[in-house]
Each structure stands twice: as structure tokens, then as C-alpha cells.
């Protein structure tokens, strides 16, 4: 009994002396939803954070939070030679602890991207509050403008960007980026966004996806516009459905949605020349038909499928052409080649792979299939043909 008591007292002392040593109440935190990194003209980094003003988020009335206005967030930024230095400056004027564990998006300014972004990504992995699952996006112009945008649907532009990237383009997380940058034979890419006014112009500023930024090493060199970005999608491991317009005749268009798709890359080395045989498979649904063609007829459908195949081939070729022009290997051709011809890759190709891309030949073949023409075969306003 005596010993038991002693043990108890010791345990209690231990607990009391330890105290609540790193306890932080939720209302002492400034939860960072998104942050952006820009490069200033003087070579310093600018760190901008988007912090929700929780008192304006609709808690109970009364008691009284100190913030004014009806904005649900605010954006602040500071510069420094390192990101942590900028963070310290920010923290020095913030009454709440900056808390990074909840950021969902990291916005990279275009200038920084053109200058190379490897260095700034160090903090993202080193600092435990940061998450490797956060999405990286590239902003046209300054990154901070993305944080200042106020989309109508979401409370914060960070949230909007995240949802948008997941659905509408090729999402890239910090982890993906790190892998792409560290793997030879693959070049990185990032979703490319900018903030625009909605039409007709309202109070809100929305986030628009412009395409996919093209990287050589850790430097941005170009942008795949929407069409070329569509060509990129076939080469992703997980296909995300997207829609495109196909011209059936010169004047008449059909809109289709691709549900499934994949691309096979077959590298061939023939007499020192590198060739890639690319086979694209796609299956699509017709979502709008502005032609007079009755898609219920096999002939029309086959024609459409042929047009569709040509269209896909074309976009893929455009993508490849841009890759060749900028000498970037965005779809990881080098990786495929290295697996098929490991000896050649190691001995000759690896070191100047990006330069060699200019001489690489491509043969693209597409097999597109329409699996579903929608609920009607013809425009419903048309009168029935007599049988």
C-alpha cells in the first residue's frame, strides 16, 4: 500500500511537471489553407499565406472575435532570403501560430518556376507540418494573385484550386513532383492556372486552368495548351475522363467524352535510330451532336470513330511535337526506353537524353471506340423517318 502510494505520487508529479507542454488551442492557430512562393526581383523569396478568419466562418454569435469585415480569409506575405526567414517575418506580425499541416495547395509563381524550383521544395519535405500529399500548381504571373482570388463556390481559393486540379486536369502532388524531378528519363509537369474574372464580370475572381506547364529539369520551359495537355492525358497511369470536340465534317461538330483511355509506348532502336510506336486506345460517349448524321447507323458511327482516332492522333502528335521542340520528356519516354534497352540507355542515351529527343521518331496509331451515343440517336426535334 505504501509503495503503491509512492508510485502514485511519483506518477502524478511527473505528469504535473510535464504540464501541457505543446498544447495549442485551436483558436490560437492560424491554419494555412494554401501558400505561394514567388521570386522577387532582388532574388529574395516571397512567401504568401492564405489564412481563414475563423471568426467569420459562422461560429456562434456573441463573445466577439476581433476581426472585422465579412471576408472569410486574408492573405499576407513577406520576403526573405529563405522561406523560413519569410515565415518568421510573417509570424512576427501574426497573433496566432502559423500552422501549415492543413495546406492543400502550394502555388508556385511563374518566375520562380522559370528560375528552378528544386531549392524551395526542400522546406516542403523537411518541415514535418508540411505534407507531401499537397498539390502543386503553377500560377501564370505571381503566385500570390491566386491566393487573392475569391471564387464564388468555395470559401477559399486554396480549396477551389484543390478541387479543380483533382477534377479538371492532371493533379501533381509534392511527392509526384519529387519523383519526376529525381527520375532520369522523365521530365516534370505542373498544372498551369491563372485567376480570371467570371463573365459577366462579378465580384468574384475564379481560378481557370490554362493547361500544363512543361519542365526541363526543375525549370519551366513552356506550356502545353489545353489541346496539347489533352494529348498528355493518354499517357497517365490513371486516366481522368475529359471531353473534346471533333469535327465530323468541315462545319459540323460532335462533342464526345472520353471515359477510358490508355497509351502503349513501344520503343525500337533500329540502326542507331530511336523510334517510338505509340498506340492509343480510347472509348468515348457522345455528349452533343450538332450534325445531321444519325448516329444509330453503323456507317455514321464508324465515320465518327475514324474522325475521333484522327483527332486523337493529331493531339498526341502536337504534344509530342512540343516536347521535341522544347526537348522535354514529359511523358517519360526515356523511362520506357531504359526498361527495354537498359544497356544502351546506361552507356549512351542517359546523359544527353533531352538533346536526343529532337531526333527521335514517333509513330502514333489510335483506336477509338464509341461505346455510347447518349440517350437519343438523333436530335429529338427532328421528325421520324419513315421506315
Amino acid at each position, binding site marked *: 500500500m505504501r509503495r503503491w502510494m509512492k508510485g502514485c505520487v511519483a506518477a502524478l508529479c511527473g*505528469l504535473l511537471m510535464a504540464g501541457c507542454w505543446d498544447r495549442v*488551442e*485551436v483558436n490560437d492557430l492560424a491554419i494555412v489553407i494554401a501558400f505561394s512562393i514567388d521570386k522577387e526581383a532582388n532574388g529574395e523569396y516571397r512567401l504568401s499565406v492564405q489564412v*481563414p478568419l475563423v471568426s467569420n*466562418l459562422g461560429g*456562434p454569435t*456573441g*463573445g466577439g472575435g476581433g476581426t472585422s469585415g465579412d471576408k472569410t480569409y486574408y492573405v499576407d506575405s513577406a520576403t526573405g532570403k529563405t522561406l523560413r526567414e519569410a515565415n518568421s517575418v510573417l509570424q512576427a506580425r501574426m497573433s496566432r501560430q502559423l500552422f501549415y499541416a492543413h495546406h492543400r495547395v502550394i502555388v508556385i509563381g511563374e518566375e520562380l518556376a522559370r528560375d528552378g524550383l528544386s531549392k524551395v521544395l526542400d522546406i516542403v519535405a523537411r518541415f514535418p507540418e508540411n505534407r507531401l500529399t499537397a498539390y502543386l500548381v503553377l500560377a501564370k504571373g505571381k503566385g500570390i494573385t491566386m491566393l487573392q482570388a475569391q471564387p464564388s463556390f468555395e470559401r477559399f481559393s486554396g*480549396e477551389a484550386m484543390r478541387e479543380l486540379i483533382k477534377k479538371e486536369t492532371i493533379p501533381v502532388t509534392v511527392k509526384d513532383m519529387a519523383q519526376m524531378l529525381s527520375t532520369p528519363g522523365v521530365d516534370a509537369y505542373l498544372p498551369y492556372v491563372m485567376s480570371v474574372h467570371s463573365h459577366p464580370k462579378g465580384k468574384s475572381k475564379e481560378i481557370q486552368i490554362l493547361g500544363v506547364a512543361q519542365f526541363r529539369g526543375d525549370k519551366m520551359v513552356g506550356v502545353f495548351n489545353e489541346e496539347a495537355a489533352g494529348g498528355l492525358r493518354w499517357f497517365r497511369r490513371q486516366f481522368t475522363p475529359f471531353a473534346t470536340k471533333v469535327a465530323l465534317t468541315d462545319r459540323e461538330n460532335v462533342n464526345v467524352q472520353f471515359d477510358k483511355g490508355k497509351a502503349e509506348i513501344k520503343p525500337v532502336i533500329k540502326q542507331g535510330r530511336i523510334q517510338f510506336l505509340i498506340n492509343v486506345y480510347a472509348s468515348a460517349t457522345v455528349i452533343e451532336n450538332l450534325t445531321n448524321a444519325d448516329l444509330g447507323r453503323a456507317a455514321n458511327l464508324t465515320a465518327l470513330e475514324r474522325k475521333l482516332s484522327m483527332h486523337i492522333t493529331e493531339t498526341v502528335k502536337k504534344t509530342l511535337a512540343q516536347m521535341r521542340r522544347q526537348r522535354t520528356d514529359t511523358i517519360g519516354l526515356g523511362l520506357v526506353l531504359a526498361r527495354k534497352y537498359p544497356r544502351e540507355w546506361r552507356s549512351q542515351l542517359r546523359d544527353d537524353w533531352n538533346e536526343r529527343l529532337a531526333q527521335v521518331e514517333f509513330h502514333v496509331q489510335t483506336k477509338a471506340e464509341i461505346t455510347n451515343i447518349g440517350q437519343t440517336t438523333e436530335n429529338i426535334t427532328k421528325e421520324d423517318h419513315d421506315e
Partner: protein
Amino acid sequence: MFCHYYAPARDSYAAAPSAYFAGLSSIIRIACQRLVNAMAHNGTPNKEEWLKTINTCSLTDLEGVPVFAALQENVLFLKRLFSDCSDFVIREFKMKNGVPVVAVFVDGLIDTRAVNQALEALMILESGDDDVEVIEEALLPVSQISKAKDYKEFLQAVLSGDTGIMVDGNTQALTLGMRGPEKRSVDEPEGEAVVRGPREGFIENIRTNTSLLRRKLKTPRLKMKSLVIGRETNTNLVLAYLEGIADRELVEEVTRRISVIESDGILESGYIEELIQDNIYSPFPQVQYTERPDRVAGALLEGRVAILVDGTPMVLIVPTTFWIMLQANEDYYERFQMATLIRWLRYLFLLISLLTPAAYVAITTFHQQMLPTTLLLSIAAARESIPFPAIVEALIMEISFEALREAGVRLPKTVGQAVSILGALVVGQAAVEAGIVSAPMVIVVSITGIASFTVPHFNASIALRMLRFPLMIAASILGIYGILVGILLIMGHLANLRSLGVPYLSPIAPMSVGDLKDVLIRAPWSYMNKRPSFLGVQDARRLRAGHTSQQQRDAGSSGTVRQGGSGTGDGGRTRGEG
């Protein structure tokens, strides 16, 4: 063990003439030698003194004091013993043959009409005899009658409601079991309501309770050992078990633990529970209680032992385990799928009731990164104007919830409703609107409250409610690490705990695989063919082996009686196989 002195009592008898006591025969003095010795130990050697204070004796002190042959001495002795007892009646009369007899009983405990009939037989109808043996055998038309040799035995019966008959010249007294009908009717127990199952519950009268039990188990194997505990209350206890099924050592151990109790009074089975449990400091109940006969019968069939206590409807069952505390008797009456699902629900809510407030405190003050962002923002928004840290908020809410519940239990039903409405309004809505507690905290507390009511045993849910508070404090100091430390301590304690020698966590720890069919799931009855082995039962087989008939195995298709001659033959064969 010896008489107590009460100042007024001594004063009143000091005035009585000592010659009065000298009239008592020396037998009394010899018989009460123990008392004299006890008095001597107490430093009061005066022999006259103890006689004056004989009415401060307990029944236990009268053990071995025989019934005197001379009736007058008995009457004197009883009158002294029960001086100032207005409800104790000593009725002196003569039998038809002139032998003096005395009937003693407690007014209100007897069935007056039946006693009158018995006395009528002695006084008027029968010729009378001076030997109690003859009176018992031939003269008294009473079904329950027994002989007492000493005063302890005799008075125990009389004070329990029997009528005592003493006949001049006999050293044995008769006790007639004609107890009054002063008892509550058998009702549905409020504390353990069921949807499906018998509606009867035990009452305060132990005879009724044993009869309810006997009605469930009509077998000579059902043994009901009678014990009397409590110096002043002389509470009747019955130890019920099934001979040949319950572990004999267990029965002996329970008997031993009960019989060593030397207490002045047992008013409720809770006294017994605390006095026989293995670890008195544990918050977990090591003895199960119930007021349902079907539950007791079920426990006896599993090889456990029940302790019925007079004066309370709560029957104790030992040994018990942690898992039994999460089983309701309805589990065995409902279909097994439903019973299993509800059992899982209880396990889930057991964890919720123990951990939710602690987890809320830990996550919102230490591990904000664990929450989904939108949830964190909602919580942050709700907490924005709250002046207290999360742990203080949690303690305020949990304590006021406990207070509300306690108030609701004690108050009469009509007032209780008003209190609960007031509590819901004040603690729930108003506190949130006033910005004293946050809305998520109210949700946490309500979920915890609901969760703690899903535990079918009230005392087990109290244990969990108590442990919630140290866990909350641990969480506020060390976060989730603190909760883990707390859980580890609780688990260690549980693993260490025993109920009458049976490990508290069995059959999970130590593992006995065959008994798992009644822990995590409730297996269909056709598979529960053995009694739980961790209870050390002697005769394990419950159900004929291979009970599951061909019909059940074939999902009924082969058992249906087909049309035509072959149908009956087929059915017969099926039954034979079963």
C-alpha cells in the same frame, strides 16, 4: 461479540430488584458463560450486570443458549430480551389438557388467520400433549414446522416471521412457518427492461425469489444453501447453484467468503458484493447483479453461483467477466444475427463512451493535423469565442451532464422531466449561445452520454464513466500519447483482475478458443453446445452433439414433407440422422 452498553438501558434496569434475576435458574448463567467471559474481558466482572443488560445482546450471542425446560424461565428470559419491543408478542395459554404453552411471534410478520387456526387446534380441538414431538407429529395442522434447540435458531425463525411455540417441560421449541403475505407483487424490473423475454422480476422477499428461481429450474440439482449474515439484521442469504455443474471449489470459496463476514447488518446485496470481491479498489464490478430470474437461471446453467439476499430484489452472480458486463439477456432470446450486431454496437459504444471526450481534447489541442481541414475550420469557428481551454470545457460539460443524470435519477418522475428539459435547454442550447461551451463539445458529451447507456449493466457503465475523467486529464497533458498510456494502464489492470479466481478478461485473455462463440459474436444456439470452460464447469455438455439437423443444414429443403409415398420415409430418415 458481546453486549453493548447503552446508557439509558442500564439506568432503567438498575432500578429493577436484583432478586428478580436471582429467580432465574442457574442454567441460564451456565449457558450464558460466554457472555460472562466476554463481560469479564471487558473489565466488568459483575455477574448481575450482564443480566440487566441482556436485552442489548445480538442473536449471535445467544448461540448455544438452550431452550429451558421450565416455561416460566423461558418467558422471563424472552420478556427481558424483548423488553420495550411493542411488536413482539408473547402469548401464554394452556392446552386442553392444562399444560402451559407460550406462542411468540412478531406482530405484522405472521399470517394471523393461519396462526389462529393453529392455536385453535392446540387450545380447543385437540386433547393436548406435553411432548413437542407428539404435538408436531399429531396435533398441529401446519405444513411447515421445525424444531429449534437453542435460542439463536429459535429467535432467528421467529424474527423472520415464524411463530414459535414453547411447551412446558421441553428443551425444544417449535417454529411454525406461517409468514404474513406482506410483500410486493412480482413486477417487471424497471432497471432491466426487455423487449423480448419474461417480464417477471425478483422482489424483496427471498422466499418468493427462490420460488421464482425454482420455477425456472425444476431439478433437484438446483441447490439453495441457506446462510444468515449480520449480527443485528440476521439477513437470510441463499446460495444457489447447480450441483454437478458449478465448480465445487467455486461453491466452497463463495461459501467461505460469505461466512467469514462478521458485520452488524446487511441491508442490500451490495454489502455482500463489496465484502466478497477480489479487488476492492478496482472501478470495475467483479460481481454481477440482476433482478431477473431468467438471467440468474441462465447464469446457473453456465456453472456460476447466485447469491440471493433477503430484503432486496438484486441477486448477485459470481464469477463474472468483463464480457458478461456487455451481454444482455435479450441477446440469447433474439435471433443470433441481431444479437451479434447489437453486441458489436455495444463494443463500439463502449469505446466511444470511454474515449470520445479524451480524444476530442487530445486532437483539438495537440494533433490538429489529424482532423480533416473543413472539420478543423468548423471546430475553430465554434471555439473562436470560447473563453476556456478545451479540457476545462470538457470537464464542465461532462460534470454537468453527470449532475443532470444524477438529479434525474433521484427526482420523482414528474419533476425529473422538468429537470431534463431545463438541463437540455440550459446546458445544451443556452451555454452554446452564450459562448461558454462550443457546439462540438455538446455533441461530444451527448454522444458519450448515449454511449454510456448502451452498456447493459449499470455498474459497468459507471466504471467507464469514472475512467473517462482520468483519461481526459491524461489527454490534456500528453495528447494521444496520454490516452494510450491510460488505456494501457486500464488494460493492465483488467488483465490483472479476477472475479472469484476467474481472470476478468477470460475467455479472451487467457484465451480459450471454444468459448469465443459467446463473446465477439453470439453463435446460434445449435452451436453453443458446451458450457463456458473457463468457469471450470464439471458437466460441460449443454446440447446433444450434432443437434443441427439435416433440415437446418440443407436450409430446410430436404426436410419438407413431399407429396407421395416417399415423402414420409424421407422425413423419417432425416429425423433419424438429426
